């Protein structure tokens, strides 16, 4: 195992900020900030649709505000081909819908709540993701 590009400080700081987003949403609206659930609900449910849509708009504005105020460029690189990207998008949509959660819903909110379901989900999607990277990487 070779460790490279490790940025523990910015990772931890970013994590704390995400944690704050989660608690603001929870204390304010009593809901868990699971992104796949929020996007899904926006698509198929009339309940809280404006709230959900505004969360998504905020999610897109976040990086814009970050760059505007810090003047720091965000490193960003996608090397996958278009067919891979489309397939992956489909699988992420189908998988998070059937498994009822993604990295934020299960990985952050669920684990914070000590939910056994979420801990197991997180272990499973990490393992299949690691295997996928090993196979196609």
């Amino acid at each position: 195992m070779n460790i490279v590009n490790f940025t523990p400080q910015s990772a931890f700081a970013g994590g704390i900020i995400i944690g704050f987003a989660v608690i603001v949403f929870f204390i304010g609206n009593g809901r868990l900030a699971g992104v796949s659930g929020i996007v899904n609900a926006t698509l198929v449910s009339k309940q809280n649709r404006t709230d959900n849509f505004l969360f998504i708009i905020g999610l897109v504005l976040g990086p814009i505000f970050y760059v505007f105020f810090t003047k720091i460029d965000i490193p960003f690189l996608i090397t996958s081909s278009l067919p891979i990207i489309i397939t992956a998008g489909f699988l992420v949509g189908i998988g998070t819908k059937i498994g009822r959660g993604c990295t934020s819903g299960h990985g952050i909110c669920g684990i914070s709540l000590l939910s056994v379901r979420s801990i197991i989900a997180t272990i499973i999607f990490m393992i299949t993701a690691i295997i996928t990277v090993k196979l196609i990487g």
Partner: protein
Amino acid sequence: MASKIVSFISGIIFGVGLSVSNMINPEKVLGFLDIFGLWDPSLIFVMLGAIIISAPVFFLFRSKNKPLFADNFTMPTLKSIDKNLIIGSSIFGVGWGMVGFCPGPAISSLALLNTYSVYFVLSMIGGFLLTEFVDKIIIRGSKINYD
């Protein structure tokens, strides 16, 4: 109105967190998933940072209070480890490992105006809607029951 402002602000803060941690960057996430190659453990620190903040608040706030702008807390109802959880999470992991995008970062990255992000998000929405369609129309009455 207040709940809408809270949703909007939460989304912004979340997007800033993804930017600061660079989890918005698929290459960074793939670095984490490449445990057997050149490994970048940063994602663990992101999760730790978030959990350290949210876990105590979940437990302290929930037992004593109501949310500020809602009648009650909306919590997941399912508790059991079912087939859907295992199959769904497995499929999600494969998609995540193919590109390095999960839903939050993918949507947030639309800000960076990369065409590939748009294709990914549209496909993901296609996946959501396809699953909804299959569940509601084709296997209605099955045990599958989404939020």
